[in-house]
């Protein structure tokens, strides 16, 4: 059992010290992942700080972050390991002329020297503390998910020519998903599940205060309140936390001290990315009761 953290509260505090404001749920799951030695599957709307969580945990532990960005067509040679066949060829050619057994060469070219490590294997073999981030895991095909299963449940990688490589130390593993497809049961079963949603108003305000330098408490409060109201409208894409932060930064740059309807209308394109959403929101916020 690894003991990176003493209790849930300390996780929360440490995360706050690297400017990531977590809540009970997030801190609790991170703490459990460490205790149970299980990966965390983080799901939630875009821009709620899923990737940021992994980065912040790495930062707070002083660990190296190893990141595997998933995409369609990701395969073994990009995710796990690959044999450096050019080097292998050179090796064979260098031996030519000298009398050596085939078996020797065969053993030799499938050794550690000729292995190119890719993120997953690298995380397993690392001597220093690492945090492994498998980003947007929902982008790979269902079949490719199987590549991850061995490493997620047993923290080992089997290479037919070499045998099984076991982890020297259990890394903290984060998988993020934007939920564009259902992940397989097998994958989910191996992970702790964490759903990161939009923060509530108090947390959002805190986030704005930490992330945006020079913002006044009053403005941060207003920002959080406007964003909450906008999120209640049925939109194609609700404003994310990162967009909230961008908006707050803009307001600070523009020297706004108090958000009125005029300012909101002029800068709302930072929060919302669809014209239809913008129109709907302006109409809605302009009336005291709300249309929806």
């Amino acid at each position, binding site marked *: 059992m690894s003991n990176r953290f003493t209790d*849930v509260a300390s996780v929360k505090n440490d995360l706050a010290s690297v400017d990531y404001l977590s809540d009970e749920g997030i801190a*609790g*799951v991170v*703490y*459990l992942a460490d205790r149970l030695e299980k990966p965390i599957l983080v799901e939630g709307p875009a821009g709620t700080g899923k990737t940021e969580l992994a980065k912040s945990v790495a930062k707070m532990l002083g660990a190296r972050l190893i990141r595997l960005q998933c995409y369609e067509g990701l395969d073994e040679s990009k995710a796990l390991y690959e044999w450096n066949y050019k080097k292998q060829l050179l090796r064979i050619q260098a031996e030519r002329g000298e009398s050596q057994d085939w078996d020797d060469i065969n053993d030799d070219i499938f050794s550690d020297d000729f292995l190119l490590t890719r993120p997953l294997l690298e995380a397993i073999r690392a001597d220093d503390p690492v945090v492994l981030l498998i980003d947007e895991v929902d982008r790979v095909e269902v079949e490719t998910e199987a590549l991850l299963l061995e490493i997620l449940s047993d923290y080992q990688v089997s290479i037919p020519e070499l045998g099984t490589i076991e982890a020297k130390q259990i890394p903290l593993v984060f998988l993020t998903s934007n939920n*564009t497809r259902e992940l397989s049961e097998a994958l989910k079963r191996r992970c702790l599940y964490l759903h990161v949603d939009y923060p509530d108003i108090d947390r959002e305000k805190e986030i704005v205060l930490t992330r945006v330098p020079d913002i006044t408490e009053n403005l941060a409060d207003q920002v959080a309140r406007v964003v909450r109201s906008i999120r209640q409208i049925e939109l194609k894409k609700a404003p994310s936390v990162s967009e909230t932060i961008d908006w707050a930064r803009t307001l600070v740059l523009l020297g706004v001290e108090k958000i009125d309807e005029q300012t909101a209308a002029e800068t709302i394109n930072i929060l919302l990315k669809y014209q239809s959403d913008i129109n709907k929101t302006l109409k809605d916020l302009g009336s005291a009761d*709300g249309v929806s």
Partner: protein
Amino acid sequence: MTLTDDTESEPTPAAVGEPLLELLNGFIIQLRAAGLPVSLTENLDAMEAVKHVPLGDRDTFKYALAATLVKHYNHWKAFETVFEVYFSLRGPEYSIGDETELGELQDDDGQDQPDGAGDQQGGGGDNLSPEELAEMLYQALMRGDQQMMRGVARQAVKRYAGMEPGRPVGGTYYLYRTLRNLDLDGVLERLLEQDQNNEGDDEDLSDFEQRLQKDEYQSRVDQLQKEIEAEIRRRLVADRGVEAMAKTLRKPLPEDVDFMHASREEMASLRKAIYPLTRKLAARLQRKRRHGRKGPLDFRRTVRASLSYGGVPAEPKFRNPRPHKPEIMVIADISGSVAAFARFTLHLVYAISGQFSKVRSFVFIDGLDEVTQYFEGVEDINEAVHRVNTEADVVWVDGHSDYGHALGVFWEKYGQDIGPRTSIMILGDARNNYHASESWIIKAMREKARDVYWLNPEPNSYWDTGDSIVGEYAQHCDGTFEVRNLRQLEGFVENLA
């Protein structure tokens, strides 16, 4: 909602140690009964997890269970309900009977003044008059004081809910009675007025500011309502026991909610569920399309590529496959009972309209109208659906379903547009009010079209009972499907594209 009452609660039942595993087992059985797929591994994980968290901390305990047991966001609500019931605070003060005795017990720590700080608001206040309670409510909402809200909730439930021990109910009625007496809408109005007057000295609040203020109060009111619900639930659990309550409160998961019998609340959650679902479906279909097999050998490009290998065709090139994109015609019954079903199907079909070469839609009750234009160039499908419901001309005589006449109109006006690549989807329960079926039209359609499918939102066992004549139509269709919930609908549409 946070419920870490450490002031007046009995410890959660989990705190007693060994029986914990047994309790957890029961909890997981309840989860499974609510439809959550909890595997054995997950069960073991949960047992392992709770060893690592302080049991006194209810929130952490809850998240530990959630992280190991709930692997799907849609299941969160079901989990929460079971959790609240199973691990609710149980103590003598929640029993329904014997109000007076308990009142006395608690009176000593009560402070009747609304400005009395903090924790002990919860227990006291039994001697308040209704006016005082209303004033307390007003104060609590104005300041957003959580402790005070909890106290008000407790008092209100005690006073107004009129709970009777032993009645097998879920608490909706008690909630209604409590809320009616509190008149939250009135309080909300008063709060807003107050605000207007307060700041009215300098200038009037703009609409925008008023709106923000209202949202703020609204969220406090929602919170209060949750407190009241929790309070009622706690009392019910104390009265009736965990299993019985979990059973009463069990609700189908969103993807299993029956279209025909969805409550208003469930309808709202369905509407929310449909957008991510369509997005998922579209992504999946696109992927399926892209990863289909390769087309035939492209001779020209192969020769061209061979030039870089000195004329050896080392790298064969293939044509990109051109998968068939079906043309869809949706003919939907939008009369009363099946309207919701039609709405969701239209929504889904249009959300993935990129997967079809053309989508045309028609709605009918006893008359029939084409509504394709409502969806064209519209970004917000909800609005289009709304226009369909209000503007389409679908009533011919009396506004009772007449499939025969509607199909007749369709055949006469649009029959010539059906081509060999058209798939036709007919949505409806085929309850024809004993009009003529005109099922020959379906037969004629099928001869011209690629496929004709009938989707029926009624359970299979109701088909062909009463005035349902789906069987008569079904014999001419390529397939008849029961589509009662989102899960079935998603499955059907995926196969279609």
